[in-house]
């Protein structure tokens, strides 16, 4: 310990030292920047925020964590996304820190904290808004064609038939990016087989891919594709470059299954559409399915985790505590996000769109289960082949049976 102290003292100036923090570099970074500024006013150890461009985030974090210049604090998706780091002994176990601290213990919705945990141990503190996947739709198109917002699978099929007959693509889908296709599998499996099927897979039971519900979900996907629910060219449409969102706001597609960030995406691309024409709903029920129609999939939120090699563990935890503060939650609300703090409900009236924020909050709060996006819940060694197989299934390059077999075979 003395040696460590001496070493830590080497080369540092008379200030208290620096904590580096990697964060996903998008528009929301400004909220973390403000929080860091606030924290640094009173702390001797300063936090230095490093925003990493979104597409490079996972790669850069991975290379940094394997090198001597790893960040002290880093943004992540919890669960499978941090498992390799946990297994390599690179994460600070925050369980006792959270349980023994009133601010951290009562500050966040328990289900959200749990969703980011691994084997019952807490490695992350929530730091951004909740991102459930919702069914977005174009209100004008629904009104003009006298279609009801689908609540059941029957409604959905009727809507598909009607919109197709009018030359409107029923669902926008950014198939070129692959992960938007995954959202369909996530919801279908939940509605058909309930959340436990995927929970087994997430807990390492590879044979659970053989559950009949997985096959049924994959068959349903094929049926949707064959019925033309996503149009003919979804394989060359993407989400990242705005292909799919534009289809929705230009009235070329009627619906879009997407994370709650679709709202801010639309607000940025077509503000008038976002404010007047954009509707949202829960994913419909599927006939014969055992899943609760109130279940939600998506990203519960993002988390900060602490690198076990940090020299300033206590200061890092002190910084993480500020995520539970009212002012931080307020900043999230002002940005259109729904915070996962336990006091969030009372603040949502101040949101740019209180209705959207409240609906989203209630949807998550009432959900019996919140399944983390599969590509984050699973380690990358399973998630990458999963995305490849999903893409093959949607593109008609493999059958539902082949999909199941391929997923069972991933080692």
């Amino acid at each position, binding site marked *: 310990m003395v040696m460590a102290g001496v070493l830590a003292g080497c080369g540092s100036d008379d200030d208290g030292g620096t904590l580096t923090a990697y964060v996903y570099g998008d528009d929301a970074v400004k909220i973390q920047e403000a929080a860091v500024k606030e924290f640094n006013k009173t702390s001797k150890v300063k936090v230095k925020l490093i925003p990493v461009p979104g597409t490079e985030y996972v790669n850069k974090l*991975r290379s940094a964590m394997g090198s001597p210049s790893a960040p002290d604090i880093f943004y992540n998706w919890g669960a499978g996304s941090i498992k390799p780091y946990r297994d*390599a002994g690179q994460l600070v176990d925050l369980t006792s820190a959270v349980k023994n601290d009133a601010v951290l213990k009562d500050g966040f919705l328990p289900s959200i904290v749990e969703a980011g945990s691994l084997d019952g141990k807490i490695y992350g503190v929530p730091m951004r808004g909740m991102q459930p996947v919702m069914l977005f739709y174009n209100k004008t198109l629904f009104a003009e064609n006298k279609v009801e917002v689908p609540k059941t699978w029957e409604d959905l099929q009727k809507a598909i038939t009607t919109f197709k007959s009018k030359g409107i693509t029923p669902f926008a889908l950014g198939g070129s990016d*692959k992960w938007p296709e995954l959202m369909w599998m996530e919801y279908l499996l939940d509605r058909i087989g309930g959340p436990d099927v995927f929970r087994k897979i997430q807990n390492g039971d590879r044979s659970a891919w053989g559950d009949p519900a997985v096959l049924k979900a994959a068959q349903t996907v094929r049926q949707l594709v064959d019925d033309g629910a996503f149009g003919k060219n979804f394989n060359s449409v993407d989400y990242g470059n705005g292909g799919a969102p534009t289809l929705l706001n230009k009235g070329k597609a009627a619906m879009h299954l997407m994370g709650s960030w679709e709202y801010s995406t639309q607000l940025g691309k077509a503000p008038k559409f976002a404010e007047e024409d954009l509707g949202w709903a829960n994913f419909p029920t599927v006939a014969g399915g055992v899943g609760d129609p109130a279940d939600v999939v998506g990203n519960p939120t993002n988390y900060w985790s602490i690198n076990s090699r940090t020299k300033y563990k206590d200061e890092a935890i002190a910084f993480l505590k500020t995520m539970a503060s009212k002012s931080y939650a307020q900043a999230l609300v002002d940005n259109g996000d729904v915070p996962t703090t336990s006091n969030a409900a009372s603040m949502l009236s101040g949101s740019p769109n209180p209705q959207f924020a409240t609906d989203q909050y209630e949807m998550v709060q009432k959900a019996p289960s919140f399944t983390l996006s599969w590509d984050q819940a699973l380690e*990358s060694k399973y998630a990458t082949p999963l995305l*490849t197989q999903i*893409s*093959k299934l949607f593109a008609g390059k493999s059958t539902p049976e082949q999909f199941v077999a391929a997923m069972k075979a991933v080692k």
Partner: protein
Amino acid sequence: MPHVSSYTKVRGGRKAAAGNVGRPPVAWALPGIVFFALFAIVPLAIAVYLSFCHWDGLNSPTSVGTANWTRLFKDPEFRQAAWLSLLLTTISWAFQTPVALLLGVWAAGRQRSRAVLSAVFFVPLLLSTTAIAMLFHALLDPNFGVIKEIGPWFGIDPNVLGSSTGALLTVAFVGGWQFMPFHTLIYQGGTRQIPQVLYQAAEIDGAGMFRQFFHITLPQLRNTITTSSVLMIVGSLTYFDTVLIMTKGGPGTDTTVLPYLMYRTGFQTYDLGYAAAIATALVVVATALSLILVRFSGFGNMRSTREGM
């Protein structure tokens, strides 16, 4: 010690003075050899070493013997990727060579208009691959891109990047569009090296333009064709950025060529040992193809193209 070094210096100097002019001692190549070793040989050796390990990038690599290699030979995805890489290379070669050759021969003329046009043709090479890929990606957007408007005139379904053949052909086309100017330049240079007397003699003998092309230009460009082809093959085999940006290996895995499979395995699945095996296999294939080409074209013997001159 100082004595020894000064002695060798003197000896070296005397030796160089003793009629070895134009053939500098090995020492001159040292910087080149060091750089090549540092940036080519050492990484390659590390890749070969890693191909016998399991490594997730976080923990230390652990030896797994030949497991990655046995997996490689059984892996249907690797087989598909290897096939796609060869297909892409063949298409690229067959598409780029005739066009670049004809353009290069044409551009070798000395008229002013040709110089201007040649400069214009050269522009794609100056753009970054990323910029080009993004440009074509936007043009080929099936709902909002140019392809939606003009595709149907030529009977092309706008879903180009979403169809297996379309996506692969697009990747080959975009690569060709970018690199053809470079090969044109090589052919232009090669053509200008052909002695004018050959053409003058041919004209006296009454040979027309086509005969001159097939009996003088083409044979004289033999070595240039080999050079260009080797570069083209190695380039197409390592084709990556366009795939990453335009198709992400899709639809399904239909444009997952070897370098992309390597990237996916290494930097998305973090199975760096297996990715190293794929990379090593790629090096072997590229080297083998180049050697075969060089051998069968007679380029290796450096047979003169100026026989009788």
